[in-house]
């Protein structure tokens, strides 16, 4: 398994390079213009000059090469500079100035480093999207397990009904609905997410929790629905297997049978879905973030897409791709752990 993991990690590098090229070509092909949001009152000649200043006139391969160098060489240097200057674990090293005077990956909208956008948006994304995922998974697993165990019970039927309705109603509707109920009518919760709230004491913590409730609820509904369905169906498949009968016949406690034997064998599809979902946290929740003005990574990516801000889109998507490749690799490794018969070599 270790050799498999190392081999796959090494193979990930050319894979990711290829993916970055594919993303770049896709963005080049896609119609769109960074000047689309500049008002029509700005004459075309000026827009043309602005495009030139962004480096749009350069040949495609030059633009791609520039991005590659900036992302894979200069950004890590910036990180090293930052680490040697500001952190406890590398601060004892002499301050380096490797990246001084070098051009980082610069967004066309903000003219600032894209990485700063990522760092700026990460906290709210983790608070909201990450938390909703944790909540969603934490609710979905027990629901899925118990629904399958008590197949066609009232609990199962209700669970099915609620999760399926929850899944088929899109967040662009549930978001405003929640705002209307909890923020407008009841006035309990804020409708907008305050990204500059510093959690320093109990009161601010309560405020933070309050503003997270609505977006987390909307998002967790989708996650819960999806994962609990897969969990339930996999459990159902396994509960009827002969090994379950054997285990029971051996006199194992019911809890052990279900939670150890059946659950372990049912985790494979669920692990797959969860592994696909974790990178999606980084991708953000575009609609929900927009409704609640969370302005996390999803929102940043969305407006970068609409503004045809290629360096930003490229960087965000590529980090997303790294996570996809990584988590799918983790899932593959986990399959082997869950079911030792699965071998890759």
């Amino acid at each position, binding site marked *: 398994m270790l050799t498999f993991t190392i081999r796959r990690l090494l193979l990930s590098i050319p894979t990711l390079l290829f*993916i970055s090229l594919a993303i770049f070509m896709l963005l080049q092909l896609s119609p769109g213009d960074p000047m689309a949001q500049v008002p029509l009152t700005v004459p075309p000649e000026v827009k043309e000059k602005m495009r030139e200043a962004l480096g749009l006139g350069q040949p495609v391969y030059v633009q791609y090469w520039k991005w590659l160098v900036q992302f894979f060489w200069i950004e890590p240097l910036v990180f090293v500079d930052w680490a040697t200057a500001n952190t406890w674990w590398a601060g004892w090293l002499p301050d380096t100035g490797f990246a001084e005077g070098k051009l980082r990956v610069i967004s066309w909208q903000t003219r600032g480093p894209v990485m700063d956008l990522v760092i700026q948006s990460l906290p709210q994304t983790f608070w909201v999207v990450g938390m909703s995922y944790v909540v969603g998974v934490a609710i979905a697993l027990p629901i899925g397990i118990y629904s399958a165990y008590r197949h066609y019970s009232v609990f199962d039927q209700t669970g099915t009904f609620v999760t399926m309705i929850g*899944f088929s109603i899109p967040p662009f509707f549930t978001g405003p609905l929640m705002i209307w109920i909890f923020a407008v009518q009841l006035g309990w919760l804020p409708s907008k997410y305050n990204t500059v709230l510093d959690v320093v004491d109990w009161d601010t913590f309560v405020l933070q929790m309050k503003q997270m409730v609505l977006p987390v609820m909307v998002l967790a509904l989708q996650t819960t629905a999806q994962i609990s369905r897969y969990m339930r169906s996999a459990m159902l498949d396994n509960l009827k297997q002969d090994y379950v009968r054997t285990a029971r016949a051996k006199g194992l406690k019911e809890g052990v049978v279900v939670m150890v034997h059946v659950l372990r064998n049912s985790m494979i599809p669920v692990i797959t879905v969860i592994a696909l979902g974790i990178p999606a946290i980084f991708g953000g929740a575009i609609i929900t973030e927009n409704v609640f003005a969370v302005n996390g990574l999803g929102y940043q990516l969305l407006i970068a897409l609409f503004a045809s801000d290629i360096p930003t889109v490229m960087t965000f998507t590529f980090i997303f*791709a790294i996570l996809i490749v990584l988590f799918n690799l983790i899932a593959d490794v986990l399959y082997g752990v869950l079911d030792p018969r699965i071998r890759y070599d």
Partner: protein
Amino acid sequence: MTDTSPNPNDPLAEPIPLAPPTSQTQDIWRQFKQHKGAVLGGGFLMFITLFVLIGPFIWTLEATKLDIRAKDMRPIVWGLWSDEAKVGWNHPFGTDQLGRDLLSQMIEGGRASMAVGWAAMILSLLLGTAVGVLSGFFKRLDFILMRFTDLMLSLPLLPILLVAVTLFREKLSKTFGIETGMFILIVGVIGITSWMQTARIVRADVLALKEREFVLAAHSIGTRPGKIITRHLLPNVLSPIMVSATLGLAVAIITESALSFLGVGFPSDFPTWGKLLADAVQRMNLYPERVFLPGLLISLTVLSVNYIGDGLRDALDPRMRGR
């Protein structure tokens, strides 16, 4: 631990038949009929399909016909508790802000949504299952197919849509006419961008299944790979596929509305359930029925497909049958 489980093909595991033997199809049908949810779901799906297919012949009002004087009418039941409500039998479900009849919009919209939903879902399932099975079963294909899946997962959706439109819209609408052309484009785009999860799940299950005894046994007696896939693997990955199908239908119906918002979908005056829902969200507190009705139709359709999937899975599972 599963190594100790008895061979599932052990004939002794089957109960001793009490009734004369029946064919497999009859068995499946009998089992399916016993599943109340599945029957209800099937009934509802049939009703909805008829509703959108024959509906326009019974309720002949055109969905795109505007009548600005009759705008913002309420459903007829509103008249029961409010005398001021603007209601009328000519628009039993009310009208929208431009005076388009809600009932005919739901019928017309249902046609598009159901067609897109089913077609895109089936396309995505076929792709996902094919990639998943091939990649799980044939070691040589695994790496390349799964890296391709990673690639597809990483590509941002919006540029894909815009590229697809730029490249194909004019050609498709020229060859097939506007609406069919758009339909093909939408189904293609949704199908091609949503198969990856199914593929990953199916592959994971196949990876585990192909090491199980019955598959090894099939191998050892010289069964050809194609046969193993269709006889032994596919029936055993059916339940996650069913779940994917249900979720996929909902996703396809909703995605369609997002596409028309981006100008990638049907023309703006062409109603679909997803678009009716999206358009009504702004006036959700003024006219709740306009979000409620399409929302309900989408949910019930998805729910009934889910129940049918459940029933089908139970019916196809020999271990469930006869219980």
